[in-house]
């Protein structure tokens, strides 16, 4: 896609800031809304480039974690759910909505796994819990957004 989605969004954000907002003098509400709309375009430009990559990396990390956790000393029921999730077929395409729908039940299972690990005092549980946090931090780091200097 040329120009890229990010380029188009950044160009539009620039137009809002430099060509629209300054002409709304005397209407503070409209200036604020135009500026915020421009700012959202800046954020959207960041997500446009990376959203699929973030979701795929997060999905793969969750499945790898579940595969390992399924072999740990968790309850039988949880182990079965983890094994099933780790080996479930991948979404049929990489559209963001498809990936999000694929990951939602994995995140729900992660919550159950995390809560179960917190109840377990054995060292293996602490090690797995640290891996849970690695996956959560991967997603949190990847989704950070950056504001333009104002």
């Amino acid at each position, binding site marked *: 896609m040329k120009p890229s989605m990010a380029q188009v969004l950044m160009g539009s954000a620039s137009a809002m800031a430099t060509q629209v907002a300054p002409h709304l003098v005397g209407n*503070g*509400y409209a200036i604020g809304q135009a500026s915020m709309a421009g*700012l959202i375009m800046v954020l959207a430009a960041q997500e446009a480039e990376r959203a699929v990559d973030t979701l795929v990396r997060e999905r793969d990390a969750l499945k790898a974690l579940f595969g390992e956790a399924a072999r740990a000393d968790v309850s039988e029921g949880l182990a079965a759910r983890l094994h099933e999730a780790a080996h479930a077929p991948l979404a049929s395409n990489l559209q963001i909505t498809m990936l999000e729908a694929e990951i939602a039940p994995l995140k729900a299972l992660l*919550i159950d796994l*995390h809560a179960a690990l917190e109840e377990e005092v054995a060292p293996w549980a602490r090690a797995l819990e640290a891996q849970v946090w690695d996956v959560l931090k991967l997603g949190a780091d990847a989704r950070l957004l950056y504001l333009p*200097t104002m």
Partner: protein
Amino acid sequence: MLTQSEIETLRAYLARALGHEDVAIDNVARIYGGASRETYSFDAMRGDARGGFILRRDPDDSLIESERALEFAAYQSFYGRNVPVPEAIALETDPSVLGKPFFIMRRIDGASAGSPFQLNAYGAQKDHVGRQFFTILGNIASVDPYDTQLPGVVETPAPEECWRRELDHWEGVIEADSLEPQPIARAALRRLRRNPPKSPPRLSIVHGDYRNGNFMRDGKGDIVAVLDWEMAHIGDALEDLAWALDPLWALGREDLAAGLIPLHDAVQIWEAGAQQKFDPERFQWWSLFASLKGLAIWISAAKAFHDGKNQDPVLGFTGWYCTARHNKILADRLAAKLEGV
């Protein structure tokens, strides 16, 4: 925006509230900001006299589901004390008057509220603003809740229940409004429940959203009004201090308290105003809670936007930017220490 007919209704309403039928109004303009209410500025004239007023009207949806009577009572409670607030004039809870409940307060001219996301927002006035910011926050904490109108509009918890009431409330918001599973929020909720804080030495009024962006300052850098009291309640004063110190509001300077002054100075100033000692252990709980509460607010904002109830761009912004920041803040903190707060 207000229609011509609504402006006439507003004029007649204000005239009755002020006790002068010959009041006229003009310069009605919507103001940007205050995502929890539609906010309008207008002038009222009677003879040669002219005064500025603010109308705050409930929106269809907002960042925060709040009671207008509560915010009105908070303004009334602090007006004339050592916490600067605008003068509250009238509260109308009947939606038939202007379509939605509203209240009117006097406008403060010659001052403005800054953005909480603007780097170095106060420039050379940073230190001056910071010292007042924490003095006023301490002053809020020093007020006896029973010496205000708030106990009439909000529940008064037992001191040992302050934390649980707040955590239950925001857990309910996360439960109701999450569009997808929230593993970081869930982990924070479990951690907070496993490690409850000690009770506060006494109950205080908690502003609920005391932070950069929610006060007005004049050209000299003096804080002349504390705004947005819609989440005010009675509880532990450290809840407010923790919210004010959350990294999200640090204007890009997380090495400083609220991005303004050194933490040690901020705590000393707050203690002097609040007339209570800072308890670092209790504060840790409220600090973790503050980031979770923020995340809950952004989750709600995202749902309102997603469901089409309110597609104000600011809700889209907070649903993206602030959610990402608070998830990161919580994940870093909880992962660094697998036990305690």
